[in-house]
């Protein structure tokens, strides 16, 4: 798990800064992006192992972003982490290649477990 590169994409800056700080404390490299475009640029520049992203964002929304990531970088795993998350979103997300779908607020340990599982597989 140490050295795992994670990109957090969410328009809630407070949320991603805190989460990234906590991940960093656990030895995970966490980068941040507050919208789809900057996220794509970051992925282009420095592809992470996992992208954890929200669904509702200004500009490119989560599912669209997921589609584009899937098209460009097939080896990047995506975990959806949203405040709403209907079952339709969940199913569509999984269909587009998201490895998991989580609803906020999420326990850090649950998130770590998923990351670990993903990392091992």
């Amino acid at each position, binding site marked *: 798990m140490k050295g795992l590169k994670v990109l957090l994409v969410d328009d*809630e800056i*407070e*949320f991603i800064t*805190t*989460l990234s*700080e*906590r991940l960093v*404390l656990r030895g995970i490299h966490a980068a941040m992006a507050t919208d789809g475009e900057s996220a794509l640029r970051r992925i282009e520049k420095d592809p992470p192992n996992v992208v954890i992203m929200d669904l*509702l964002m200004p500009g490119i929304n989560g599912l669209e972003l997921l589609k584009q990531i899937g098209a460009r970088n097939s080896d990047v795993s995506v975990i959806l982490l*949203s*405040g*709403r*998350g*209907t*079952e*339709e979103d*969940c*199913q569509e997300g999984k269909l587009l290649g998201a490895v998991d779908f989580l*609803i*906020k*607020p*999420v*326990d*850090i340990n649950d998130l770590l477990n998923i990351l670990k599982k993903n990392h091992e597989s």
Partner: protein
Amino acid sequence: MDSTGITVQESIRKPLKFLDRLNGFSSADPAVFSDRKKYLRLQRNITLLMFCSAMIPLLFVELLFYFQYESPVRHSEHSGIGVEAERIRQDYELFLQERLSGLRSLAAFYGFEQLSDSGFLAERLQILKEEFKGFEDLGVLDHRGLMRGYAGPYSLEDRDFSNSKWFQKISREQTCCVRASHAAQPLFILSVRTISAKGQPWFVRAAILPEVMATLASPPGLDTGMEVLLTNRSGILQTPSIRFGPILNKLPFHFENKSEKPGPIETVDIHGEKVQIGYSRFREFDYVLLTVRSPLEEKTAWSLFSKELLLILLVSGGLIYFLSNRLAGAMIQRIQHADEKKDLAFRELEHSHKLSSIGRLAAGVAHEINNPLAIINQKVGLIRDLIECSSDGTELKGISESITDITRSPDCKIYRLTDEIVNAVVRCRSITHRLLYFSSRMEPSKEAMDLNELIREVLRVLNHAFLERQAKVDFDLADDLPLLHADRGLLQQALFNIFNNAVEAIPVKGKILVSTRLEAVRTGELKQPEAGAGVFVVNIEDNGEGISKENLEQIFEPFFTTRMGYGTGLGLSITYGIIQKQGGWIQVESELRKGTRFSIFLPLQTVSSKTLP
């Protein structure tokens, strides 16, 4: 808890039926659809309409018959006696004509001189008597009224009859009936007027026996009760009558002379009885033949006819009413059924609209809350991380030594506070997640499970709450239940909600009874009935405070709660939705201060290979 009293049944009936309808299992009990009276009124109106539309033409036909046949039937009755009179009159006329022609031929053959010989006349009388019945005597009169020759029982020879009434009559008429001074009874006299060679008239006269005349009055085939009379035109009886007195009596009524079509006469006889009289005038003689009948007998044909008409009217009326009523009843039943279905569909639609709009709202609210909640969660998490790091002796950047010192203690206050914040976040999260679930429309997945085991699992989760209340849970679980195929997570949630409510409803040391069984399914209960279908029944009874009648109607409505302040009002609504999604339904019975029973019905479904574990 057993709600057995009648009042209880009544109090819970409405919400139960309401739920039935929501579930799509329409109740045939029309009382639910309150407007029983409306349907009865409608049925009455339709019956009346159909009855009238059939009866009015029938009535018309009957009236038509009545008026069409009234006069012919009455006429035929009356003309019956007229016809009879006509027939008998012809007999009489023939009888008299025969005898007159006998006399005429006598006068023509033999002449006045020869016939004036009484001996010869006696021979002729003998021949006439052999030829024609009824001749009493025979006489020849000259123009002055002197009886020149006579043969018969009376000694009338050479008597002068010029002043006698009957001679005056026969000099004008061919026949007459007279009370002659020489005879004990009135005689019926026939006479033939002949002109002699000298140009003077002479007469051949004969008397006819009254008994013979009377035999003509009762011909064979005459109605019993009908009397035949002979009168002259002045209404003097020529034959004796039971109803109008002896011969030569005057009739108490008049005939309209020369009337072309004589109608029947209704009058009263000498005994004061009503009679109907038909009559026929003689063509050759100045007589009228009467047939007399009492009117009671005459009216039978018409009264029979009207009675038949009335009977037909009544019988068909009754039949039409019966059929109309039955038909209207069947029609109304269909209408009612259709109305019920419509009502049900409307309510279901309304319910689902309500749920979906509330669902959208709930999803929005949940999302809005989840984001700040996630921030709080992470912030608190970070604080805890920092504390944990510091207690591990890890170098903490930017945190003063004094704080680090405080937090080094394992039961430090900050650590406890963060714990409480995390707990609050978890509580909030459970609410927002429930809201999200409420809005979700996912199709439930299916897996095979043991229903009893599922119930035990849910109860284990709630164990602490039972312990807190010192509640006693009794089980009455059927051992031989087949596997249930349903969404495990959803069912857990549904059962959890009901158990949770039960625990909160019961007093300290309260009781909860859980029972399961498999029931044969009744027709129409399942939306997609399968061959050999059965239904799982889970009963959850508590001896809690019960639910009031008003609340019972609303408990499955979203956001309905009686626990003001700490209930979301979504638990039972979600439960209701879950059970419905699994193809089942929920019933609830409750009585205040006695308890509540929730019954969950879940269809037993055949196992397809895909869903087998």
